[in-house]
């Protein structure tokens, strides 16, 4: 779409939207938010870009083929489920790893990995749908 306002606004917005999607994603750790909603906002960012600049440009910005994103997301989901199996617990059991950084503490867990998978799948799926509809 050729519109100066849309172009300028999109350039400004896309970064904010992606940051916001990551914010939602990490917030989902303890509060409402998470991979799905974060992924929706992230996909929204790329959809906006696709509307403003076309799908070719969006593919370049995205760098990775959206279908590969879905595949990576699925992979991350499977891995998060399989990790507890190697520790002799049922599929999908939550496993946590606490890393101390002095006063700070980082919590890594299989639910986080699962959520990353969800995020990637949602972004990949929606962008794929938008692309295939746009490129008709």
């Amino acid at each position, binding site marked *: 779409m050729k519109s100066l306002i849309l172009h300028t606004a999109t350039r400004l917005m896309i970064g904010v939207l992606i940051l916001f999607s990551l914010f939602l994603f990490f917030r989902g750790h303890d509060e409402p938010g998470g991979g*799905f909603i974060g992924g929706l906002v992230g996909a929204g960012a790329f959809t906006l870009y696709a509307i403003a600049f076309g799908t070719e440009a969006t593919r370049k910005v995205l760098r990775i083929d959206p279908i590969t994103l879905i595949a990576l997301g699925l992979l991350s989901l499977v891995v998060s489920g399989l990790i507890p199996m190697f520790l002799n617990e049922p599929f999908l059991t939550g496993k946590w790893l606490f890393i101390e950084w002095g006063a700070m503490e980082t919590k890594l867990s299989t639910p986080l990995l699962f959520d990353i998978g969800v995020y990637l799948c949602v972004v990949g*799926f929606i962008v794929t*749908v938008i692309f*295939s*509809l746009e490129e*008709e």
Partner: protein
Amino acid sequence: MDTLLPIIAGAIFATGIYLLLRRSLILTIIGIILISNSVNLALFSLGRISSENPPLIAAGSLEPMAPFANPLPQALILTAIVIGFGLLAFALALAYRSYRELGTVDQDELLQDAEDTSAAILPKNGSKEGGNA
């Protein structure tokens, strides 16, 4: 709310059925969307609606403050909405593709008997070696 929601769900369901029976493909899709929403609403109201504390665990405590609302129906609905969203995206894309291919959204015309079905299958082994079929 306990009586209102089922009535609304029923009304939406009926509207959906009406639209489902129309000839236009687009109206059919809207009908499916409406039915899907009414089913979600039914699921919501069947899970019992109560005004209690949110089922969130406050920092420092181990369980939510009783009495808390039942979070399960909402989880179920969220799942159903996500699935419905995916399926509807597909249905819309399919309808659009059909419109492009067949040039109409009228179901009577869309679903007229196709010619020889073997034409649908890519002929022979050519496609394997020939690359782009």
